[in-house]
């Protein structure tokens, strides 16, 4: 508790907030593309790539904190959410490339709506105290 409480959560900062905001922006852009019957465009794919970079950076920060002796409230769930999280943008990318129609954009939108939820759950699994 001591080290973790003193250092604060490594997954609750500007990086996590940026990832959430970026993900929601890409989701909104993809939603507009879906409504306009547009296939996933460069903006969506670049958005997914930037999102993945942000999530990988978040993972590195979390791993550094773990290496420094900090421990999440629920280690197993934290690891599970972290692994899932970095897999989401690539999943959206692959499926979007397989489906070059409006539904590809819908897939990007759906995955980018799920990503912020996973980020928040990740933060919760770090912070659970005395669990």
């Amino acid at each position, binding site marked *: 508790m001591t080290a973790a409480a003193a250092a604060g959560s490594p997954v609750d900062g500007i990086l996590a907030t940026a990832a959430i905001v970026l993900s929601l922006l890409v989701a909104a852009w993809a939603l507009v593309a879906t409504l306009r019957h547009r296939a996933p465009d460069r903006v969506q794919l670049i958005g997914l790539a930037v999102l993945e970079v942000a999530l990988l950076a978040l993972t590195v920060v979390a791993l550094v904190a773990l290496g420094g002796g900090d421990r999440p409230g629920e280690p*197993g*769930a934290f690891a*599970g959410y972290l692994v*899932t999280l970095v*897999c989401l943008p690539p*999943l*959206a990318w692959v*499926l979007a490339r*397989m*489906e070059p*129609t409006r*539904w*590809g954009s*819908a*897939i990007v939108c*759906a*995955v980018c709506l*799920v990503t912020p939820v996973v980020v928040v759950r990740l933060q919760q699994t770090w912070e659970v105290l005395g669990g």
Partner: protein
Amino acid sequence: MGEARTATRNRTNTGPGRLLIAVYLLFAIAATSRAGLQIATKFGEAPVAYLLSALAALVYIVAAVGLARAGAAGRRLALACCSVELVGVVGVGVLSLVDPELFPDETVWSQFGSGYGYIPLVLPVLGLLWLWRTRHDPA
């Protein structure tokens, strides 16, 4: 050739179907990892709830595979899974409200899937509608 075109138009794994498969995949991942973790770390606390989570996870995986395979066998598989899901989410939803003691810990299907934005309730309905829409698939 004409047959092939019809097949493409009615396949369960293209267009909106691909979105459905994507959501099923997300739920398969969510349910599998959750159930796996619960069974591995605290199975004794709520065995029924955790086994149910595992069953739900399996159903989501098989449904995604069924929709993605898109043949006659895939359709039957998806139909069976969507039906099981619908019965499961409604049944567990009712039971979890009537007798909360039965499920001391959350499952994907508790309270009609409220923990997951009620998507577990909507998903099988969309799946069945999609299978109905693509029912003229010659395969």
